[in-house]
């Protein structure tokens, strides 16, 4: 589903965002992305939904080269990808409802269906009662959950979540995590960038670790936590693409 082939991203100022990263994420996989601040997590995600373009190598999404996609095709790529941005990026002039239902709306859903869908999705992140508030009237964690709801509303093929629980208390983080596990079971490929090692070790799955733009570790962790609603996995677990065994993650990449 998502393939990176020797991808490097060097920013105009000379900063290295990514450095020769190659990886492959099959459809339906849930992958954690970790690494110190400035390691390149956000950069990697940006390359997938083409907010940035690789300076070297190529990124394939569903077999299509993202960099060579003509500009007028980019929106259609992005509609299949839900993104929870690290800085939320809510539209201040629009209400929570309007922020969340923007994509369904321009896709032609009628108002009642939009409302129903938005209500459903916001309910899942615990914010149905704030549908008519403006982003500035929400607490940090509430804004973050609106961002999560927006990313999920269109049932995207791919979900890119950039630190989606950084402003949430452990209980809410847990619920968001469960939500993600649920939609993952329904077939959505997820890349979950996070600093929360406790969460990663508890859930297990595949973990990619970046360090100064380089992919330094690609491991499979045990402890497969499943959502409460899951009776059996709908998608079979893909094989690890790295042969590095499970290790004490807390001891990883200490040098900043």
């Amino acid at each position, binding site marked *: 589903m998502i393939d990176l082939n020797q991808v490097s991203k060097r920013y105009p100022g000379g900063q290295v965002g990514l450095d020769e990263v190659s990886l492959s994420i099959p459809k339906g996989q849930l992958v954690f992305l970790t690494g110190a601040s400035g390691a390149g997590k956000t950069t990697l995600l940006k390359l997938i939904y083409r907010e940035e373009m690789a300076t070297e190598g190529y990124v394939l999404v569903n077999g299509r080269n993202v960099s060579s996609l003509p500009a*007028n095709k980019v*929106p259609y790529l*992005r509609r299949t990808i839900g993104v929870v941005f690290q800085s939320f*990026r809510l539209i201040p*002039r629009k209400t929570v409802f309007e922020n969340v239902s*923007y994509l369904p709306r*321009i896709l032609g859903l009628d108002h009642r269906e939009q409302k129903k869908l938005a209500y459903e999705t916001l309910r899942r992140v615990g914010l149905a009662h704030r549908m008519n508030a403006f982003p500035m009237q929400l607490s940090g964690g509430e804004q973050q959950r609106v961002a999560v709801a927006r990313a999920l509303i269109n049932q995207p093929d791919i979900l890119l979540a950039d630190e989606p629980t950084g402003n949430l208390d452990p209980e809410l983080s847990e619920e968001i995590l469960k939500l993600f596990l649920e939609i993952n079971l329904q077939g959505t490929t997820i890349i979950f960038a996070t600093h929360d090692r406790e969460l990663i070790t508890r859930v297990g799955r595949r973990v990619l670790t970046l360090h100064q733009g380089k992919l330094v570790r690609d491991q499979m962790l045990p402890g497969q936590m499943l959502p409460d609603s899951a009776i059996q996995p709908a998608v079979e677990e893909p094989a690890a693409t790295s042969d590095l065994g499970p290790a004490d993650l807390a001891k990883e990449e200490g040098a900043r």
Partner: protein
Amino acid sequence: MTFLQALRYFFVEASSNLIRSWKISLLAILTIAVSVFLGGVFLIVSGNLRLLADQWRDENRLVVYLRPEAAEADTDRIRALIEEVSGTGSAEYVDPQTAEDRFRSAFPSLADLLEGWGDQPLPASFEIPTDFTALEQGSLEGWLKELGADPAVQMVDDDRDWLAQLDGMILIIEGLASVVGVILLLTAVFTISSVIRLTAYLYQDEIAVMRLVGATEFFIRGPFYVEGLLQGLAGGIFAIGMLLAGHGALFRDTDGQQQVLASILAETFLPASQLLLLVALGAAAGLGGAVLSLRKESLGQTAEPE
């Protein structure tokens, strides 16, 4: 989404933006209104001046003075000669007495001069309106020469000196108005695009987010275009209102001297067709400003206005 649905979306979106950001919208509307208003003032003033000039031109006549000794037969011959070109019944015969009366009323301060010049001081003449422009310049000259050569004709005064002066004055006034008009037009276009561009800067974060969640340019720009269009329409209509109000006020609260000025400059209001044109101009300005300010593909790619 069908095109009609999309259009509906644009309108709903645009009007809710207009209401939510009403301060900025009002700014844009007022800017367009002021510009269209100025355009309207220009149209009114130049229209009235043109009317005035036409009136002057209409009143201007070609005068053929007859020799005092000209007989009635001569007079008839001359009339035939004239009407052959200017059309039957077009030439007015002014007898010496009428000529004197007219002189006295036109130049009362010089009336005393006539006293010393004996009885019948002014010659009889034919006056012909100069609006028979059917004749080309060249043949007109020939005809005037022919007339002047007639033994019964003392002189042909075709007032071309005075006409040239009149034309000069109209040219000055129209020139002045045109210069001001062009400058005004440029200012208006500049202002509108400034306001809309600044507004677009305000929206660029928003536009960037829309792009990132998968909106096509069509859906991103549509509401802004409609917003511009609606602002332009509102501005245009508002301007017409101001013009009507201003025109009314001008003829209500003025005393003598100003009344004269007002009636010269703004007696006649604009016809409906020109009012429509002005509203369309406002709408076009609003839409044009929106198109102009969203033109750059790169807009909204960076959060920082440069």
